[in-house]
C-alpha cells in the first residue's frame, strides 16, 4: 500500500501517509483514504504525511485541493508535514502554503 491511513484513537485526527511518487496513479487510493476514514463522524483535522513521498506533480496538487474541498474548503484543518526539500519547492512555487499549513 502506498497510501496508508491512520485514525487517532478518539477518531478526531486522520493521518494520510503517501509513499513514493505522489502522482495521478495514486488518485484512487488517495481519494479512498479520506472518503472512507472508518468513522461515522468525519475527522476534524487531517494530516498529510509526505515523509516518504519522493515527488509530487500537479495532479497531486489537484488531489490535495479535492481533499481540502471534501474537508470543508476554507473551514478545513489540513496540515502537510515532513515534505522533502524537492516536494517543498513544488508546494512553494504553487503557493499552496496559502491554503495548507505546510511544515
Amino acid at each position, binding site marked *: 500500500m502506498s497510501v496508508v491511513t491512520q485514525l487517532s484513537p478518539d477518531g478526531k485526527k486522520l493521518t494520510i501517509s503517501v509513499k513514493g511518487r505522489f502522482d*495521478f496513479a495514486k488518485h484512487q487510493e488517495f481519494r479512498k483514504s479520506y472518503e472512507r476514514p472508518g468513522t461515522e463522524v468525519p475527522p476534524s483535522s487531517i494530516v498529510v504525511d509526505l515523509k516518504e513521498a*519522493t*515527488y509530487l*506533480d*500537479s*495532479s497531486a*496538487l*489537484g*488531489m490535495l*485541493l*479535492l481533499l481540502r*474541498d471534501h474537508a470543508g474548503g476554507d473551514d478545513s484543518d489540513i496540515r502537510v508535514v515532513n515534505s522533502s526539500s*524537492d516536494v517543498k519547492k513544488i508546494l*512553494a*512555487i*504553487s*503557493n*499552496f502554503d*496559502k*491554503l495548507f499549513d505546510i511544515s
Partner: protein
Amino acid sequence: MITVQSAPESLTILIAEDSAADRMLLSSIVRRQGHQVLTAANGAEAVDVFRQQRPQLVLMDAMMPVMDGFAAAAQIKALAGETLVPIIFLTSLSENQALARCLEVGGDDFLAKPYNQVILAAKIKAMDRLRRLQATVVQQRDQIARHHEYLLNEQRVAKAVFDKVAHSGCLNAPNIRYLQSPYALFNGDLLLAAFTPAGDMHVLLGDFTGHGLPAAVGAMPLAEVFYGMTAKGYGLAETLREMNAKLKRILPVDMFCCATMLCLSFQNRSLEVWNGGMPDGYLHSIASGERTPLTARHLPLGVLSPQTFDDRTEVFPMALGDRVFLLSDGVIDTCDADEQLFGVQRLQQVFAANRQPDTLFEDIEQALRDFRGEARDDVSMVEVSLLEPAHANPPVPVYSDSGQSCPLDWSASFEFRAATLKRFNPLPYLLHLLQEVHGLRAQSGALYSVLAELYSNALEHGVLGLDSSLKRDVAGFTRYYQQRNARLDELKEGYVRVHLQVTPEGEGGCLAIGVEDSGKGFDVGQVLERPVDPGRLSGRGVNLVRQLGRNASWSDDGRSARVEFYWKALA
C-alpha cells in the same frame, strides 16, 4: 462487449476422415453431443468445405489421400486468418515425432484412435473456450484501435480549432521568440500574446493540471478572456480576476492553471508581472547581465474564489533590448535516469554559460538532452524583448459597422470616486465610447495611450500623491509601485473626473479630453521646461501626451489637464 462463456453451445464441426466407417461413427458421436456436422473424405475436400461453410472447429485425420491432414490444416489456418479455428488431429500415429508435427503445422490438439467420447467432448469444449477467448481478444483489440483512431482524429480537429484561437494573437511579433512542442496544448501548456489598444503587449504562459483533452478544454475560455479583455484595453488585474473567476466556475476542484501573465509597455519601458504557480521567469538586463527572477507570488488560476483572489502585480523598469524569459515546469522538472530533477540551479548554470542571448533556447535544450538523453515533449519557453514603440507594430484594429449611426456632437463627464478607483479601470469603457466616433479610429492607439497616461497621472500623482521622481532608479521604481498598491488599498476619498467633448468641424471633427483630480497639483512650468530625455524612467507621461495629442495644457496648478485630437473628412 463479448464475455467468455462456459455454457456449451452448438458448434458447426467439420470432420475430415477418409474411412467412411470412422467418419460415420465420429459424426454420430459429435451430433449426439449437440453439434452440427460437416464431412469431408480427404484434405482437399476439407479445405473446400471450410472455404464455403466456415465451420468453427475441425476434426482432422492425419493420413488421407489426395491431400493429407497436415497440408489441409495449414491451408485452413491460412484461410481462417485472425479467427481461431481449432483443429484437432485424429490419429493412430503414436510416435512422438508424428504427434509433434500435428501441432507444428498449426493443429491445436490431437486425439488418439480409438475415440474416447468423454475425452472428445472435453477437448471440443476446451477448444471452444480458446476459440471464444481469441474472438474476444481480437474484437477488443479492434475496438481499442478504433477508439484510438477516433481519439487521434478528435485531437487533430481540436488542435486545428485551438490553433485558430491561440494564434489569432501576436505570437509572430518581431520581439517574441517561443518554443513549444506541436502538441504542447495536449500537455496542458498554453501561450498567448496580444497587443492592447495603447500598443502595450500582454503575454500569458499557462500550464493546466493534467494531460490530454481535459487539460486542453480549459484553454479555450482562458484564451477568449485574454484576447477579449486585452483588445478592450483592460489591464492585467482585471483580466486575471476574470480568468480566475471563469476557471473557478467551470473547472472541477482538482483542475487549475498555473500561469504567468506579463504586460510589456514599450512607451513606459516597464514590465508588469503576475505569476501564479509557474516556475520563476527572468527579466534579463542586457546592460548589467543581471537576471531578476519573476517569482510566483500567487496560487494558480482557478483555485481561489473571486472574493479571495489576489490580483496584485509587480512592476519592473526595462531598457531597450532587455528580455523577459518564461518557461514551463517541463524544463526544471525533467528527470534523468536516477529520477534527479534538472532543477533551477542547472538552468542558472546554462544562463551563466550562455554567451549569445539569441541561442538561449538551443543552449537549454542541449543541456536537457545532455542531462536526460532525450528531450521531453512538454517543454515550453518564451522570450519577449523590449523594442522602440515604433518597431513593435501593433495591428490596426478592424471594424465592421457601417458608420451610419456615428455620434458627432456630444459631451460627457464622469467622476470616479475612491471606492471605484480602488478596483475599477474606467479606460476600456471610455475607449469603447470614443471608438463609436469613426474619425477617431485611425488614432485609437495614440488616443488610448494619452487617456491612459492622463488617467494614471491623475490617480497616482494626484489622488494618491505619489512622487514620480521616485522612479529615477530601479529600486525606486519598485518602491513606487509598492507605495501605489498600499495607498490604493487605504484610499478613503478623492476623485478623478474625465470630460469628453466631441464637436463636428466641417467634414471632420475635434475631441477634447479633460482630466481633473483631487490631488495637490504640481509645478507645471518646471515639468514642462525639463528637456525630453528618453532614457529617464520618470516624467515620460507629460511628454507623451504633448507628442501624441494637440494643444496639451495644464491648469489649476496641474490638477486639470486638457488635450485635443482632430480628424479630417473620412475617405
